[in-house]
């Protein structure tokens, strides 16, 4: 709580936090949606925003506002799953490779590099074909997790390599810590800033991927997400027909989502950066 209070004194964070909170509230609101988003033609079509339909309606006869809430929920769930699991892999691989070195490092990094080298979009398209209708947000999140860890594992590894050279590693060994203890107790805290910054980047990437796949028509189009909202709006020519509210909503939401994620990442990593943190906490906190 104290951390939050401190962070909130950063204007950027406050903005991002507010936007994020609103988005999350909207996502939660989706559970109270008066409409089932899989049903079409529940409201008049192509209505501009009005008191009754805050964000208008679309050509499928759905309320754009409520569609948006569900889309935010789904996109967020997918992004969080992608980010969370890819972080798990990245942390495990990065720490292990960095600490163990030698053969372990070489092997893990070869696997890692293979993932870096793989062309993600074509493979996603192919995987989409394999998974078919099982490609819901959770599965998509997991798949993206599989392709989203490699780069960050490298970062964590190089961080670990430099941590290994730091004196406290020796102190820890002399304190009798076992390898896993060492990795988790000593190194993990250092890796957390990278993890949190890259997690946000990863969410960024995951949502972007989902949008790309959806626009290509390759994700599960019956599930409202930011991407599928755009897909439908584009394929029904919302832009050319002047149904701006339909296409603008997902675009604005995703820009807001990204901007707030970005600002969050900036201010959180600033907060976690030992150098700036020392300034905040004050090195001069000398005992008595």
């Amino acid at each position, binding site marked *: 709580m104290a951390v939050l209070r401190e962070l909130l004194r950063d204007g950027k964070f406050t903005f991002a936090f507010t936007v994020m909170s609103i988005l999350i509230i909207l996502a939660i609101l989706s559970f109270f949606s008066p409409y089932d988003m899989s049903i079409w033609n529940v409201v008049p079509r192509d209505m501009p925003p009005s008191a009754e339909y805050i964000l208008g309606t679309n050509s499928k006869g759905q309320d754009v506002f409520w569609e948006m809430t569900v889309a935010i929920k789904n996109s967020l769930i997918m992004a969080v799953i992608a980010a969370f699991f890819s972080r798990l892999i990245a942390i495990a691989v990065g720490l292990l490779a960095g600490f163990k070195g030698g053969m372990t490092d070489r092997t893990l990094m070869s696997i890692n590099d293979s993932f870096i080298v793989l062309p993600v979009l074509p493979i996603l398209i192919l995987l989409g074909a394999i998974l078919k209708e099982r490609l819901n947000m959770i599965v998509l999140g997991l798949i993206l997790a599989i392709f989203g860890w490699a780069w960050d594992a490298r970062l964590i590894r190089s961080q670990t390599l430099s941590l290994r050279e730091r004196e406290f590693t*020796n*102190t*820890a060994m002399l304190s009798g810590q076992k390898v896993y203890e060492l990795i988790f107790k*000593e190194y993990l*805290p250092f890796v957390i800033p990278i993890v949190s910054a890259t997690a946000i980047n990863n969410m960024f990437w995951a949502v972007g991927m989902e949008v790309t796949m959806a626009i290509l028509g390759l994700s599960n189009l019956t599930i409202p997400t930011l991407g599928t909202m755009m897909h439908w709006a584009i394929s029904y020519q919302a832009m050319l027909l002047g149904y701006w509210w339909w296409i603008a909503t997902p675009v604005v939401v995703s820009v807001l989502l990204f901007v707030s994620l970005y600002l969050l990442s900036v201010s959180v990593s600033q907060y976690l950066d030992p150098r700036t943190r*020392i300034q905040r906490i004050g090195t001069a906190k000398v*005992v008595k």
Partner: protein
Amino acid sequence: MSSKLIEVNGLTKVFRVGSLFSRVRLTAVDNVSFDIKDADIYTLAGESGSGKTTVSRIILGLLEASEGEILYKGKNIMNIKSEREKKEFRKDVQAIFQNPFETFNPLRTVENYLYETQKNFLGVDASDSIDGIEQALTAVGLTLDDVKEKYPSEFSGGQLQRISIARALITQPSLLIADEPVSMVDASLRMSIVNLFKELKDRYGLSVLYITHDLATAYYVSDKIAIMFRGNIVEKGSVEKVLDSPKHPYTKMLKESIAQPDPRDKWDSRVDLHLTEREEYMLKGCKFAGRCPHVMERCRTEEIPDFDIDGVTVKCLLYQ
């Protein structure tokens, strides 16, 4: 007092360094031998990069030697492979490091290390007993309350250095390896730490391998000293003998270079600084040959053996 606690024989460590097109072998530690007795403070001094830290790391098992053996209580510790034996050895040989601010993980509270050391080596959980910790902290003039729930950044350098020593003492080791424990702190802190070593030695019969380039404190605190230069021990013996009347030209230079805290005792001569460290490592014979005022032709070509001169071992042909 006479039994050898640890014996280092012919220790050699080769690093490979360099870049894409100039890759060289660097013998950071070259055939180093010395021994430390019970309740002895043994100083390893010498210039920067002479291999002091490398020696200590090898002893602690944090680096692998290229050659040589280390006998601890008569047992070759290089062959230790099993975790159990390693643990036993670490319980007996503990260390503190150069930079107190780097010794502890800045993101963890310091007390953790105390609990962990006790738990891992003595098998005593902190929730059962903290006697050992209390005792160790008392020995360095602190209490657990001073330490509780605090991060490294909340301590002064001196305090951290003491905590670091306390941690090492929890296992009641026979040997403490202190790698430049005072270089980063100011004069008054320096003395309090060095005094602590003395006290521990006297009170608990602890041996200390004290690595430093501060010869004044080395003289003040230690019993024996070895001077390293470019991977070799060029001179070793009792601290009084070596520092009062240095024999090796490098030791002489070293001693002369000490800035005496006495305005009446200023430097009167000049030093000649050599440029490239790498080249000196590459030299075949005496590595000091390039700067030595007494250099002879043979110095550059021959392997220089050790010579014993009134209880001091010197690696210099002048004493043949």
